[in-house]
């Protein structure tokens, strides 16, 4: 049996009268690929935000690698090995794609050098064995972004911005990667290719993945476990074949008419 890398115990979060998370218990096994599904406002992003330290739960504990990270801030959580991508890509818009990635590896180098003012951009990044430039180029290639190397990110198309956002999150070599709606805002034709590419790159390193997704075909194709959120609670938790057939999931999230086709895709 794999070890538990992330353990959320009894998470609660309210915004005024709205309950965004209600007694959430999730234990994530190392190497898992978990799809988070639910309608808008069901609590998926709140869950992701609590794990990554953007929101502090009202009560409950989050343990990562056996360590309590509930009160840590995003920066500290990233440094421990949990990184995320964003529903709306968060890029450095005046920089090129290459510079965006260089910045990511630059921060890694800076942290490895304990924030030293004299960290050099052309030095080997400790633990990575390559320079910032070489790592950034390699990452562009892995994510199929080499053609956009010198383009300022502000003008890049949605799908490319998404991939770059994920490439930047992967730069820290996270133990857990959280992807918030990796295919939202991406055209229907592109999204399967994008997701295949992302999963190929991410999963080849054995990274544990949790992704928020509205497209059930993508969930069925990539997730080995599904967490279904409704009204701040988890209403189903299991392999996609089972979770996507759950009566409440069918009623509130998937929709009865789509159920058959989606579950048929499941692996």
């Amino acid at each position, binding site marked *: 049996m794999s070890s538990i890398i992330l353990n959320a115990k009894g998470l609660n979060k309210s915004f005024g009268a709205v309950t965004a998370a209600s007694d959430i218990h999730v234990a994530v096994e190392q190497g898992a690929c978990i799809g988070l599904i639910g309608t808008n406002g069901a609590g998926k992003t709140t869950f992701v935000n609590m794990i990554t330290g953007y929101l502090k739960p009202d009560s409950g504990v989050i343990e990562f690698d056996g360590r309590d990270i509930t009160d840590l801030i995003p*920066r500290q959580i*990233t440094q421990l090995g949990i990184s995320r991508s964003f529903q709306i890509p968060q*890029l*450095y*818009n005046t920089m090129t794609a290459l510079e965006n990635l*260089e910045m990511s590896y630059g*921060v890694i*180098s800076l942290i490895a050098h304990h924030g030293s003012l004299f960290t050099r951009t052309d030095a080997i990044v400790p633990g990575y064995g390559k320079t910032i430039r070489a790592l950034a180029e390699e990452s562009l290639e892995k994510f199929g972004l080499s053609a956009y190397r010198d383009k300022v990110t502000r003008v890049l198309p949605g799908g490319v911005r998404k991939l770059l956002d994920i490439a930047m999150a992967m730069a820290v070599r996270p133990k857990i990667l959280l992807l918030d709606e990796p295919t939202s805002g991406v055209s229907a034709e592109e999204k399967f290719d994008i997701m295949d590419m992302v999963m190929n790159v991410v999963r080849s390193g054995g990274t544990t993945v949790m992704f928020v997704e509205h497209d059930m075909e993508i969930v069925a194709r990539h997730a080995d476990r599904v967490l279904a959120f409704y009204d701040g609670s988890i209403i189903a938790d299991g392999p996609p074949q089972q979770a996507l057939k759950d009566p409440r999931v069918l009623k509130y999230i998937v929709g009865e008419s789509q159920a058959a086709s989606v579950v048929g895709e499941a692996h």
Partner: protein
Amino acid sequence: MSIDKPIFRFAVFLGCLLLASPWLPQWAMFMITIAGANGMVVLGLMLFLRAGLVSFGQALYFCVGAYATGLMTQMFKFTDIFVLLISAGVMSGVLAYILGFLLAKYRAIFFGLLSLAFSMILYGLLAKTEALGSTDGFNIPAITILGWLPPQPLVRVTILAVTFAVMLLCLTFVNGLLRSPRGLLLTAIRDNEIRAEYMGASAQRTIHLIYVIAGVLAGLGGALAAVTVGHIDPAMAFWTTSGEFIFITILGGIGSVLAPFLGSMVFGVIHTVAFANSPNTWQMMIGLALIAVILLLPDGLWSLVSRMKKARA
């Protein structure tokens, strides 16, 4: 840190200026030295601007540097320029370190106005302190260099040489910083602080760091201005002084570490010419120059140099 070509060329240019100093009139040497002192402050403002911040109160550290110099001469009778410069740098750096804990938490207009508030507090304190000459300030005695008292005809050129040396040291340091991941992080913070934090970087710590560096630079600028003019007064902390520094920052641009010095030199020329030709309305000339720069060269004078480089390439 390495000395790159433009800085090397600039160093050669400064060396030539020094060699030509016997033929330079005293007023020109004075103007160049003050431009160098102002450039030091603006070099710090350039760091802020890279991170998307504008300080309306950088004159605070300019004044602290000047008064630290003054106090060292008055209270401890130190006149060695290196002792004075180090004291000014340390005093302004320590103050910036303390205030930085508060200021590094703020962004945009809040950062600007809070910095303005602190500079005006210092102005108010100094203006009310009779022991320090109130609004009249006090004089700074002649400086020495490692025990040597330069004779009167050599005072200007000696201070000019020290100013150039300090400028080059600071330029090389800031240039190295801007090319390091920490320096690149400034642009990242300006573009997207959330992303920078989610990469594991601390925006607050980075801003605190440049706040201290900018404080030290401004303090050194204040000390150089103090020994050049030979007199200090609370107006050095007044908001119009901070305004002048922002003006020079916009005039020079932020494209290179040399831009602040280009900006402050051109400002010195505009100021001198405007003052000589219309002593009562020179501010109007400065205002018109600012409007012209914003309309015609929004990225500052350095954009002309960048364009020339591109055209040559």
